[in-house]
């Protein structure tokens, strides 16, 4: 008997008697007997909670975690930041963790207000008037942004910079198979930034132009040029932004983006082997009725008290069904709340300072690497940049593991490059140690 089910044998008997049944099997008379399993599942028998915990500790011991085993200079959409204890504590309150989607606003003001605050922070960060209450991750946000642009323009063609995160581009291609998306790419210059200029396709126009800010290789793209291309195509401009960069750089919204999406992991969420992360999504007000995902709005209760509720629900799948703006239902609310708390912990000045620390760390590493001959290809960057390795980047990365370093990420199909990232968590001592080890390996 699993201990989560409260029923005692006696109670089960009694309940069955109340139902006029004599066994639990009888509950399943509506299932044809040919479909009923007679054998137990071919799975191990139950364990105590401590045994399961110990089993997972062993799984954990077989991984090289950052900080305890590895000093990370890897980014690529997942960053090793210092996390605030307050956000961790507050985000793990059971009232947030074990609540459902706020369908009954009278008893969900906690989640709803926290999401309203989150939406405000994301909108301000991205320089756009509205934001939603989260999507699955950066990739999902990009896919939804494209769907929205396609829905708005009624066009199938999108122009994507190859500087956009390869994982996001792959997801876009995967889901684009359903929506018959035509994806066209913009190449990169030697400095890792996108080569704009009117697209060479012979179509009438595109649904969207998509660039990273900074892009996957670290380059800070010229959003105004992207905007010009979009205007040419009468397309929407979608920017995939690194939220941390926006502590230092002008926000994409103010630079002309129509939709800004991004991965919110950097905003106080652990690396977590890639998930759960946090898809950010903001847009201009005119697209509000095309927005994917949940939106929390302000209203009043019948005593006139300010309160919050999910709103514009007619966009959503449970009401609009096959005509919904998106199929999303469960999103990443808990991550959104945690990110909001972390952003509030950093606050206006902390966020600015944090961004600067990331910048300084990356540029310090770049300058140290230049000294040993590894000159970054990326000309203008924030906290991430690319170097070209002589031999196999994967090989070099492998050897650096032995020194206790996670030496950047290798871009898919580009085994002669490493993209390095530095956050505020990396000290000068760690950076110097990293450069020393790299030097040894390259000698």
């Amino acid at each position, binding site marked *: 008997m699993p201990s989560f089910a409260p029923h005692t044998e006696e109670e089960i008997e009694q309940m069955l008697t109340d139902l006029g049944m004599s066994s639990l099997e009888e509950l399943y008379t509506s299932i044809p007997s040919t479909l009923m*399993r007679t054998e137990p599942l071919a*799975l191990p028998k139950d364990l105590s909670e401590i045994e399961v915990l110990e089993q997972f500790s062993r799984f954990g011991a077989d991984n090289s975690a*950052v900080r305890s085993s590895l000093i990370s200079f890897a980014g690529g959409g997942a960053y090793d930041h210092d996390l605030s204890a307050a956000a961790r504590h507050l985000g793990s309150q059971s009232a947030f963790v074990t609540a459902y989607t706020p369908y009954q606003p009278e008893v969900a003001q906690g989640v709803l207000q926290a999401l309203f605050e989150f*939406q405000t922070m994301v909108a301000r960060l991205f320089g756009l008037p509205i934001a939603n209450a989260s999507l699955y991750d950066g990739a999902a946000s990009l896919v939804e942004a494209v769907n929205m642009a396609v829905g708005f323009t009624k066009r199938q063609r999108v122009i994507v910079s190859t500087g956009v995160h390869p994982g996001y581009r792959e997801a876009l291609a995967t889901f684009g198979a359903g929506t018959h998306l035509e994806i066209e790419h913009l190449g990169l210059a030697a400095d890792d930034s996108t080569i704009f200029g009117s697209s060479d396709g012979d179509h009438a126009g595109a649904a969207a132009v998509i660039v990273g800010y900074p892009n996957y290789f670290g380059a800070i793209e010229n959003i105004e040029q992207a905007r010009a291309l979009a205007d040419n195509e009468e397309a929407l401009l979608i920017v995939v932004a690194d939220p941390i960069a926006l502590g230092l750089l002008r926000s994409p919204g103010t630079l002309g983006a129509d939709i800004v999406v991004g991965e919110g992991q950097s905003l106080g969420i652990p690396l977590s082997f890639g998930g759960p992360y946090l898809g950010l999504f903001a847009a201009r007000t005119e697209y509000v009725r095309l927005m994917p995902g949940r939106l929390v709005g302000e209203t009043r209760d019948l005593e006139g008290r300010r309160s919050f509720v999910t709103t514009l629900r007619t966009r959503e799948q449970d009401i609009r069904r096959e005509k919904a703006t998106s199929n999303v239902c469960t999103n990443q609310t808990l991550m959104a709340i945690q990110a909001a708390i972390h952003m509030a912990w950093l606050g206006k000045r902390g966020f600015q300072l944090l961004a600067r620390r990331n910048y300084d760390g990356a540029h310090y590493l770049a300058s140290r690497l230049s000294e040993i001959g590894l000159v970054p290809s990326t000309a203008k960057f924030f906290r991430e940049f690319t170097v070209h390795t002589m031999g196999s980047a994967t090989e070099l990365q492998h050897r650096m593991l032995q020194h206790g370093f996670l030496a950047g990420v290798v871009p898919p199909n580009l085994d002669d490059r490493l993209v390095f990232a530095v956050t505020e968590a990396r*000290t000068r001592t760690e950076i110097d140690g990293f450069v020393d080890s790299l030097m040894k390996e390259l000698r």
Partner: protein
Amino acid sequence: MKFSMASAPGGRAASSPLMGDAEEPTIFELSVPARRSFSLRDTAVPSMDLDEIQSWVREDAVELPEVSERDLVAHYTRLASRNYSVDLGAYPLGSCTMKYNPKFADQVAAIDGLTNVHPLTPPEAIQGWLRLLDELEHYVCEITGMAQATLQPPAGASGELTGLLIMRAYHASRGRKPTKVVIPDSAHGTNPASVSLAGYEAVTVPSGADGLVDLAKLRELVDENTAGIMLTNPNTLGLFEREIREILDVIHSVGGLAYYDGANLNAIVGVARPGDMGFDIVHSNLHKTFATPHGGGGPGAGPVAVVEHLVDFLPGPLPRSLDGGASYTWVTPERSIGRVHAFYGNAVVLARALAFMQYLGRDGLRTMSELAVLNANWLKTRIADSFEVAYQQPCMHEFVVSAERLKAETGVRALDVAKALLDAGFHSPTVYFPLVVHEALMIEPTETESPQTLEAIAQALEEIVATARTDAAAVFAMPRNTPVRRLDEAMAARKPILTEDQRQ
């Protein structure tokens, strides 16, 4: 019928007022210029010049709130105290499987060697994670009766779309381009939405009076343009589709595939398997059946498992051992539809689910489903005098009743019943879904609630009905004991205020 459960206390949030009844200010209203919470480490990294990127540098700082840590903590603690959750009491929310989530899984989710791993760490340094995911895939496949699975989809809806894209790739691989996917009229909204996103047309098959797919109508609908069908079984009315084999035969006979929406798996784990019923593609909602907490709306996880002849289309990468389990690496199937997540899905949620499965084990998993079904049938029968049970056959893990009679007699609607139940200390059931039942109340007690709690819910519902008959206005005025009372939702939608800055 006589009922055995005395009205013992249980399952009800009776926390009553804690103090004050004012609004909670927003974090922005608590903000004071130059106040702070943060502290950053001293990295000793020198300040680097900004010359090269000067034209990109913003002049202003992002207007994030400026609060003390003390106020930050108090604010979000107070917000938490304004929210109902499973940990406070029962959540009989049909279709959502809100069950108690084991606390030790929180500790699993906090293990350093799991949470602090960068997703792009080379495979030789993440053997623990690869093994864990492989083991979970094995559990998912054994439970669903499938061959292999992707763990990438971060929620059920994402799993649906993934499954439909696999369906699409399968047809394409055979040179076919069917255009339609059949869904029953009781389907969850994500199903038709996913069908559209997969580039298919959703075709609705009606339910018969018994709440089950009308097989004759299905036969009429299906032709060689049919790519497949999406079903959940037990269906959204909580009923098992007895003729499932026949239904799927119809689909398979035209070369279509059958998709199983695993949102209702909680009824049948260890009892019956979608694979044995003839389904080809199955998603599981780990945040429902396998007790990963719902987080106020997410994160979830929606692995998609497929039969043997579809494994080639699964999204990559997949954790695979090429040396009989000695070591693991990432492998992407040759004809993969491609990634559906930037990395490998909601990995930590996946770990929680595996922990839950290991804890319950082979037999506990089956008992879980049996008791979920027992609870639903008992409660359905217990409240049959208060509301019309929509369908008479034994239900599975959830059931639908209607408040139509009550509405006709007193004006009190399903919505009012839902709101009134809040005052009694319980979360409301799902209302007005599925759409095929009028004034629907969809109730799913789950196996984690005790008979005493079920009895308490039943009594609370009875009391609401009694009040409706004597003083309907009192019911319309409920809830009274909640942090706020009924909201003006129309006002929210008319001129949406979605951020602090949109407020006048």
